[in-house]
């Protein structure tokens, strides 16, 4: 399956899971709302041009916004992580290894430790920006802090479960391919 087709399918599946599964779960607490959809952006291929990455992030967020009736909210957060992603990858990994060998970020391609840091940083960045924008209307600092921590915990748990259910086979790329 080509990378493009795979990512288009992921785009739709992540969107549908977020809208019709996670958003329908009755909230346990006001601090907790489960988010998983942004994992799509974290799973995009390494060698995507940065401009395209930012644009895809924006568009993906906007698509979710159409369903949640909050135009711009998720788009802003997704654009942010899509923009920051390349910096983080260059920081975490030596460039020549990643470009030749693997297609996309995963436990296998980045290593256990690096991948966890990658997920943790981008997830907290996404949630902080998202909740901050939401908080501008509410204006209670405890709410802001609590919601970031609550959603962060739930999201990390969801990502862990996703990684365990779908172990992506990282294709090893050699020069002949």
């Amino acid at each position: 399956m080509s990378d493009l087709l795979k990512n288009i399918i992921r785009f739709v599946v992540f969107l549908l899971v977020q809208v019709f599964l996670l958003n329908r779960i009755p909230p346990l607490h006001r601090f907790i709302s489960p988010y998983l959809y942004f994992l799509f952006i974290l799973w995009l291929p390494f060698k995507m041009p940065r401009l395209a990455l930012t644009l895809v992030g924006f568009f993906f967020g906007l698509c979710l916004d159409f369903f949640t009736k909050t135009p711009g909210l998720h788009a802003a957060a997704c654009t942010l992580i899509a923009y920051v992603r390349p910096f983080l990858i260059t920081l975490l990994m030596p460039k020549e290894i990643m470009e030749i060998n693997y297609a996309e970020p995963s436990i296998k391609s980045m290593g256990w430790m690096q991948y966890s840091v990658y997920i943790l940083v981008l997830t907290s960045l996404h949630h902080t920006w998202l909740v901050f924008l939401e908080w501008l209307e509410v204006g209670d600092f405890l709410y802001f802090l609590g919601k970031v921590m609550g959603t962060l915990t739930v999201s990390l748990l969801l990502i862990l479960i996703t990684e365990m259910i779908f172990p992506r086979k990282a294709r090893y790329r050699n020069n002949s391919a």
Partner: protein
Amino acid sequence: MRNVFLFISRYINLLFFLFLQVVALTLLFSYNKFHEAAFMGVANEVSGKVNLRYNNVENYFSLKKDNESLRTQNTRLLNLLKSDFDWPDSILSIVNDTIRIDSLEQYRKYLYLPAKVISTTVNSQNNYVMLHRGSGQGVGVNMAVVGPDGVIGTVVNVSRNMSVVMGMLHRQSKIVAMLKKGSGFGEVIWDGKTPNLVQLIKIPKTVKVSKGDSVVTSQYSDKYPPGHLVGVVEKVEDDKSTSTYVLTLRTATNFYSVQHAYVVRNMQKEELDALEKTIKKDNE
């Protein structure tokens, strides 16, 4: 000039990112303020169709509960029928009614349009309910929406076949309501904390309130027909700074599982608006 191009080509990524952020934030803040960004109309139709498909499946799971709630409503309405009431015949002579025109029809104030709920949220700060009925079927912006159990909200956005309702669980929702047992009217708002718990403010402390009192829509509202159940008082608190109460209500409508709704059209709204406009004009 060359330097400008160099600058742009060097920072194109950053500039593009900032541009998209600005676009996103503009969309977000302008939408929340005015509730009607033009593009949402198109988006409604698309996301509405997907929601509708999902809802067709989802409906089956709550059929039992829905039937229950519709049956209770039917019972209540049947009990209001004229034929239920009987009184001893005390007429002495027969008089023919000479009025030809049915005057009731002319003065109809509220028209109920049934609609199916195709999606609802409770998780965020601003929750919306989506209906499968739009401008093509007589729904307009600012119409009231009630369900079989009680008040749902106000229509804020309409496309051809769908409409978006700002539910009671919305930071900007404000409904004029009163205590069913009488005096005092106030506003129902939501503090954004717990779904299905809303606040009734501006009820003066002179009114006696106790837990379990019903709160209904007021006749002062220009949208809602009077007497629709908003919620039941769950907690009574004093507002320290003013001489009013802050009452916590449990909403009559369960926003987790609402499936049917009625859009209420106020037939006299135009007349009322026109009248109010002349007052404003006179004052200027």
